[in-house]
């Protein structure tokens, strides 16, 4: 780590500590936790863009897949739903499998000219066959106590299990999408991934039997204790007293946040270790070569397509893990909250502001942008009330401005983003490109 990195990280720490003193430690750690999650997402995007130059604007979709996995793993199964429709669901899965097998089999053995029509016919037949079982099944599931459940529920496992699984699911999604779209370049890939991520969200929104759709899944079990339980437990009270806590409920919620913080930091550290190792090894060099000039890289024997797919999948997996972490922390899955501005563009801002191609930069970017996203609001309120103070209570302009204080949030976000980018146009911690890779220097 260079001096600059240390300095910037130190500053970020100081700012969070200042928040701890000025606002409260609960706020500080609340922000910190989401900073870490944002940092993980930023790492994922950085792998794709910073390492390989893949313009993935579908981050939102993979985050959502992660979130969905958290629900499917951790929520208790809805017994009645399974009882009512388990058979039909199994049958539709079977017909799905049968369709796939039939298509693959047919494509292998049918005359090339007939391939397309046969495939289409088989797919159509499969579609109807699945529909026969699937339609009634979903209707049955969705009609079971729709206000509270109306979906299949999950596997009832500890939510921590969901985190690595979310990585796998997102990786699977990434693989599929990568196979389809990675042939596209630059912005064309961007819009395709954006589109695909919207499709993923649409599925999560409308396939209620699976995800409860827009009715949201709430009350996802936590990996950490509940505050209400803590407040009542002996050991916690004595612990709180030991640290001289005045408000036991404050202490409890702080303790919960700390527990999350520990979990998140562990995940971040593990991902970071893998990411840095990869980047600093010949693999990273190869990825940069591919990014710089894929034709030349191909001529040098690098399998560009496979490598792109590999990094794409890895990046997606990381975003998926972050998505599961976020859903765990929120305690709920709200499909309507997945909008590109928040889950894609904001992450991109993090990566670029931090310095693309540099993992440390991405993490820092995640911290700074999330911090701004949350703190721009009180800062904006404060700013508005300060500048309108001299205008006096009665002034209409002042009233108009104060009423608009909430929108200072946009202004602040914009202004600070522009200012930071002005002073660090290559990002705060730019990719180290002026020297040969670390390994060549050390050897």
């Amino acid at each position, binding site marked *: 780590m260079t001096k600059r990195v240390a300095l910037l990280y130190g500053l970020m720490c100081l700012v969070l500590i200042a928040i701890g003193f*000025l*606002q*409260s*430690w*609960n*706020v500080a750690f*609340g*922000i910190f936790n*989401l900073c870490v*999650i944002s940092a993980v997402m930023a790492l994922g995007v950085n792998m794709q863009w910073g390492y390989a130059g893949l313009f993935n604007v579908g981050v939102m979709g993979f985050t959502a897949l992660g979130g969905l996995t958290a629900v499917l793993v951790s929520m208790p199964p809805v017994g009645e739903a399974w009882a009512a429709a388990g058979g039909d669901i199994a049958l539709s899965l079977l017909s799905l499998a049968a369709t796939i097998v039939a298509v693959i089999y047919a494509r292998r053995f049918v005359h090339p000219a007939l391939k397309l029509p046969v495939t289409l016919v088989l797919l159509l037949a499969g579609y109807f066959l699945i529909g026969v079982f699937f339609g009634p099944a979903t209707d049955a599931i969705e009609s079971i106590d*729709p*206000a*509270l459940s109306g979906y299949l529920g999950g596997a009832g496992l500890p939510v921590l299990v969901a985190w690595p699984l979310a990585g796998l699911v997102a990786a699977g999604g990434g693989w599929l999408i990568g196979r389809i779209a990675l042939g596209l370049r630059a912005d064309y890939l961007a819009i395709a991934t954006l589109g695909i991520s919207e499709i993923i969200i649409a599925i999560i*929104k*409308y396939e209620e039997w699976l995800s409860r*759709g*827009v*009715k*949201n899944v*709430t*009350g996802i079990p936590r990996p950490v204790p*509940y*505050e*209400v339980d803590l407040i009542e437990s002996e050991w916690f009270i004595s612990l709180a007293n030991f640290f001289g806590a005045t408000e036991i*409920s*404050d202490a*409890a*919620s702080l303790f*919960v946040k700390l527990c999350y913080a520990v979990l998140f930091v562990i995940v971040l550290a593990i991902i970071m270790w893998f990411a840095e190792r990869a980047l600093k090894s010949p693999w990273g060099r190869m990825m940069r070569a591919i990014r710089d000039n894929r034709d030349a890289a191909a001529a040098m024997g690098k399998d560009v397509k496979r490598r792109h797919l590999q990094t794409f999948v890895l990046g997606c997996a990381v975003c998926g893990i972050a998505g599961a972490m*976020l859903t765990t*922390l*929120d*305690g*709920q899955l*709200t499909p*309507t*909250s997945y*909008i590109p501005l*928040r889950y894609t563009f904001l992450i991109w801002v993090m990566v670029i502001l931090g310095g693309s191609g540099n993992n440390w930069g991405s993490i820092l970017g995640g911290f700074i942008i999330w911090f701004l*996203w*949350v703190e721009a*609001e*009180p800062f904006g*309120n404060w700013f508005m009330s300060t500048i309108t103070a001299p205008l006096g209570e009665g002034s209409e302009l002042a009233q108009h401005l104060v*009423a608009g*204080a*909430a*929108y200072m*949030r*946009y202004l602040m976000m914009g202004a600070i983003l522009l200012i930071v980018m002005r002073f660090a146009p290559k990002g705060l911690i730019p990719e180290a490109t002026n020297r040969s890779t670390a390994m060549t220097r050390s050897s």
Partner: protein
Amino acid sequence: GASAQEQVKIGMLQGFTGPTESLVKPMALGGELAIKEVSDSGLLLGGREVVSVRGDSTCIDAAAATAAADRLVTSDGVHGINGATCSGATTAILNNVVRANGIVMISPSATSPALSEIEDDGYFFRTAPSDARQGQIIAEILDRRGIKSAALTYTNNDYGKGLADAIQAAYEAKGGKITAVAAHEDGKADYSAEIGTLASAGGEVLIVAGYLDQGGKGIIQASLDTGAFDKFVLPDGMVGEALTDNFGDMLDGSIGTNPGTDSPGASMLAELASGKGFKGDDPYVPEAYDASALLLLAMQSAGSTDSAVYKDHILKVANAPGEKIYPGELAKALQILADGGDIDYVGGTALELIEPGESAGSFRETEIKGGKWETEMYH
């Protein structure tokens, strides 16, 4: 003196930015109107000043909403929360902040049926009724008016979906026919596709379970433009002057329902608000006013700003027995409570809280006549 005492802080935690930004602006003003009224009366807990602290729940970003709530509670030290706006954000805040810190939260607008059942340790209330109830009311109205078939569209979130489900179930139980159901996303640029489908399915009326300044409006506009439907059934999210201002008498014959009774509360609030430069009868503005009022009245009744203490007084001040309290009469109510009397807060929504702490949901049926909302009857 009294002024030396600590301020009472109410968190105004609403979706100031994001998809509900335009709904929320007057809501927050409504909520703050009650706060100002109480503060100016100088009667709360021996003359303590009351201030509102705003926080942005963004409506859709659960994480940002939680962060804002955290800040209000642990940094600004609010004594109660008026919010949040949307059911999703409300649930997140409830689980992660309200229960964690033991603070009372009253939502003026989170209407998802799921919130009735959620574990809240007694800290969460809402001045809006659950959507489950409104579905029944609408079914009854349609039945009474002899409308045999209807197309249905809803805003694609927990509110819209929950309400649409409720309407469909209740209406079909009464023998009505829903010809088609199509969700619409708020904030989209065009709604022709939805209208095309709904028009093709037909139906005597179109039920629009959305928001009047969001997709709901777009849907109505597109229907009128193409001549697909000219009569609409408009649940609470669609009832507001903004709609009639915009479409005038083109909507004549359309039916609206929103929480309300024949109590004069709503119009009193409208009057109060018009003095302050906003509309008191915009959606959820009365609910927001009532939420603030309830918080403060309960504190007065309990003689404490401690959530754990005053949470048990909310139902008490909201319901009979006692003197009926209307908007603008908060000073009177504070005085009665200070004197040890009982009140029955009616407020702008004819509030009646039922277990587990939500509005019972008396509804007002309106019809648009000559470009104006006219009250037909109460349910």
